[in-house]
């Protein structure tokens, strides 16, 4: 059985991410039946009927010529190819759109998409040049390969000739309705949006872990996590983050209840991380709805036997939330950078400058903070919203566009940049904790913090003398992206007898 079964109703961003990284997919039999019902009702010559509206002039008499012209003519776009994971996400998302049963596409199209995914075959599609409405350029490049008209194609990452890649896969002789359904909609935006959502979960979970570790190092006053004030404000994300931080720092002798309010990057962490989680949950709701939405046009309603035109393809809903997600995540990164700035700042942390003995001779983690600052700054630029822009296209016909692909690819890029910022906070905080728990100070970190620290130390050794910093950053960045610091990966140390001053 396949790893993921699509039925047009229940696809989640996490499943999309799983397929993007190689999971297999199959079509639910009930969805297949729904598709067959609506395919029967669909206008046979939809493309030639729409020709005069879209192109003006006479449509070709031959249906097969019209189909081929239509698909190939949509293959614009420029620039570097989309990455393999994005392509796989695009394909499974489009298959799921068709599986909703409102498109009127035949199951053959979905079956071929899934067969290609399961065989590791992905078309090469330019990354730039889609605006997130109507006929999708990226989908056209996929359809061109599906119909074996031409184009470049990869199998398991290697460029191979088209015929060889498609050998043994089902053949698709596309009808006009297949062609239209394969192309219509802002699925590229949704696919990248789903990957951004999945990546943002991994990122924020690791950001909470890094924050807990920093709490230990700065000996945070844990009053900022107290339930009362947070409940009195009652944002669910902040309440949840504070609960998680309390658990991770439970039984710490470093981060304790004191009367010494910390700086904002420490004291207000539950509020910014929490706001980001709230944002993410809202964004995920929209993206998940869109993943299982009929974003095609026209749509077929088998029950009432109607075919109706609308504007379901417009990318605005996902474009807007992608811009929102970027802002939410950037402020998390921005605050993480301020915390790790404190950690590396001798006069603020009370630890050796840049967290190394023999400073001067060693520069320690000095540059790690620069790198974090640069990455955060880059995120600020990326956070500039894409969806506020629009450029009229296609002869006044598509006179307002969503710029969704730019918003979503920006969000995906931003998630990637911030993984390294979180990795740097983990690196600095683990190093700082070594000072706090070492021979000079015999502090003890919380039940979860100890596990986070151990995980960092499995990946990078303590910084006793200068070495190549890039090596550590690369290894920790990869671990953050792989979910090594998610709540499931963090073991809580057993509860020990209460210590005076502990939580």
């Amino acid at each position, binding site marked *: 059985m396949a790893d993921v079964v699509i039925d047009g109703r229940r696809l989640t961003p996490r499943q999309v991410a799983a397929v993007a990284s190689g999971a297999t997919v199959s079509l639910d039999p009930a969805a297949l039946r729904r598709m067959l019902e609506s395919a029967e009702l669909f206008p046979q010559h939809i493309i030639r009927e729409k020709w005069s509206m879209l192109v003006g002039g006479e449509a070709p008499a031959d249906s097969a010529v019209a189909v081929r012209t239509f698909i190939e003519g949509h293959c614009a776009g420029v*620039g570097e190819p989309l990455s393999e994971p994005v392509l796989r996400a695009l394909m499974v998302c489009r298959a799921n759109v068709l599986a909703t049963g409102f498109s009127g596409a035949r199951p053959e199209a979905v079956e071929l998409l899934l067969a290609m995914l399961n065989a590791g075959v992905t078309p090469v599609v330019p990354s730039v040049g889609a605006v997130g409405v109507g006929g999708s350029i990226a989908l056209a490049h996929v359809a061109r390969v599906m119909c074996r008209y031409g184009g470049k194609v990869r199998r398991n990452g290697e460029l191979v000739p088209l015929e060889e890649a498609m050998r043994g896969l089902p053949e698709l002789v596309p009808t006009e309705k297949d062609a239209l359904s394969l192309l219509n909609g802002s699925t590229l935006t949704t696919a990248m949006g789903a990957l951004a959502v999945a990546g943002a979960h991994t990122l924020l979970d690791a950001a909470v872990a890094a924050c807990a570790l920093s709490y230990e190092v700065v000996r945070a006053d844990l009053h900022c996590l107290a339930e009362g004030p947070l409940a009195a404000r009652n944002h669910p994300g902040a309440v949840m983050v504070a609960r998680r931080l309390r658990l991770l720092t439970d039984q710490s002798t470093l981060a304790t209840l004191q009367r010494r309010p910390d700086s904002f990057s420490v004291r207000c962490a539950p509020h910014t991380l929490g706001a980001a989680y709230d944002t993410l949950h809202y964004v995920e709701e929209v993206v998940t709805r869109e993943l299982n939405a009929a974003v095609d046009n026209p749509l077929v309603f088998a029950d009432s036997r109607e075919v109706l035109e609308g504007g379901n393809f417009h990318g605005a809903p996902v474009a807007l939330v992608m811009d929102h997600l970027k802002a939410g995540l950037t402020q998390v990164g921005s605050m993480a950078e301020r915390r790790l700035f404190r950690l590396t700042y001798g006069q603020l942390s009370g630890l050796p400058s840049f967290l190394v003995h023999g400073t001067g001779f060693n520069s320690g983690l000095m540059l790690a903070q620069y790198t974090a600052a640069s990455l955060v700054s880059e995120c600020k630029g990326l956070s500039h919203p894409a969806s506020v822009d629009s450029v009229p296209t296609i002869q006044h016909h598509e006179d307002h566009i969503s710029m969704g692909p730019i918003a979503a690819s920006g969000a995906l890029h931003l998630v990637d940049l911030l993984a390294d910022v979180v990795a740097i906070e983990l690196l600095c905080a683990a190093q700082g904790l070594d000072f706090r728990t070492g021979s000079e100070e015999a502090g003890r970190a919380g039940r979860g913090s100890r596990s986070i620290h151990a995980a960092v130390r499995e990946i990078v050794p303590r910084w006793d003398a200068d070495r190549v910093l890039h090596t550590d950053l690369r290894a920790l960045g990869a671990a953050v992206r792989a979910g090594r610091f998610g709540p499931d990966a963090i073991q809580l140390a057993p509860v020990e007898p209460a210590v005076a001053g502990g939580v």
Partner: protein
Amino acid sequence: MQPIRLTGNDLTFADVAAVARSGCPVELAPDARERMSRTRAWVDGVVGGPQSMAVYGVNTGYGSLARVRIDDAHIAQLSWNLVRSHAAGVGPAVSPDAVRAMMLLRANALAKGASGVRPELVDTLCAMLRSDVVPVVPSRGSCGSSGDLAPLSHLGLVVFRGPDDEDAAESGEAWFAGARVPGATAMREAGIPRLVPAPKEGLGMINGAQLTCAIAALTVVDACEVVLASEIACAMSFEGLLAVTRALHPGVHALRPYRGAVQTAANLRRLLEGSTLVDALPDKVQDAYSLRCTPQVVGAARDGIRFAAEQIAIELNAVTDNPVILLDAQAGPEGENKAFSAGLFHGEPVGLAADHLKLCVSEVGAISERRIYRLTTGNLSARLPPLLAERDGLRLGLMMPQVSAAALVGHNRQLAYPASADSIPTCEDQEDHVAMSTTAARRAAEVVDNTRQIVAIELLAATKALWARLSDDPGAKLGIGTRVALAVVEERLGGRRTAAAPADDIEKLVELVREGALTRAVQDAVGPLAGVIDG
């Protein structure tokens, strides 16, 4: 190819492009070598000498750690520690041509003889350029102040080795002979010895915004080509849309004499000389802005690009180090200390220039897209076929390429957001205002890439428009410049036909512009057009 001699004073944009992209060899000029040796001797005197003088970066810690004095025995290790701990880049690698440009610019800055490093260090960089040993430099993570520390440290990992060991695991990575290998392997196979850093050489290697400047310089070169190509495409659109050329009249531009506008108008007039398609509609008095105001818009972009280029040209031949050693300076109250701590490494001048450059080039793309829209829109195109579809109905025409151009404009608008406007304090508040210039330069390069693609789409659209005009009126004559441009485009497309998938044609025309073949062929026919920058 004649080697370029590095003097610290004479490097041009053309030199940077030749070394970065065409493998032109480089060597240190004899007088520069002599200058370097003299300042080097002074540094050697500080370390081994009788006077116990603290000189930043020679026998102190770095950044806010300048307060820490390092004893002479540990000075080589100090430099090696600096390079390793500062190799803090992340993300995908910088393109090899930009890394080569960065190496060249660093070598030229050192050739100025104010950094106090040995001539051997420049010789090593020149040898690496000659053998094409290109260090792998991660693109992300530099603040551009104090310079591109992390990117240059990744170069330093390959150039240097530790005083006590040669640990290949700590030698970074390099591309050599088509493979990505450890830096030590690349250097060994190329026969170039890695150097144990002499005092100050760690800092001398890494302090300065050379990655910013390398990317910015190559971007200036590319931007000049793209702007000129956009004027050629615009001239073709003038004909395709049967435009009025009165807006290009020199008398008009003399009344508002911006240099760029005057140049753009002159270029368009020259390209359109002899055309029977422009000024052909007796009742038409003026055109839409995307045609009529091209001199104002592209001209203003030219002025901005020229300003940016002037700034970047200064940086090509600048010392960007700290401290600088001024042997001839008055001794002053500090006695024999010839080292002056200052802020020449700060990336701001280049970062601001790069931000301005990308804003200017994005406008060149934006107005080009509006002309593509007119060419493909039935009621705006003076009766060209809607979407420029073939009249046999077997093509969708350029419906989707126009959409792609619109997307590129949207992307450029995002990238135009200024990176220099941001700053985040670093290094225990010692470096409390940073440039973010590297990000500005990287984004400028992206904007120019995107704009090249928009211009390629306009070339395709204008070409199809001219085909339609010529088929309607086989006796029509094109301008002396546009007729050559059309021929060059047709040659690249393989005749008077387009591919089924427009992406295939666009890709060919992007390459045509990138190679400079379009502007070369047109200027061979009509003589030199006004360039964007001088020289």
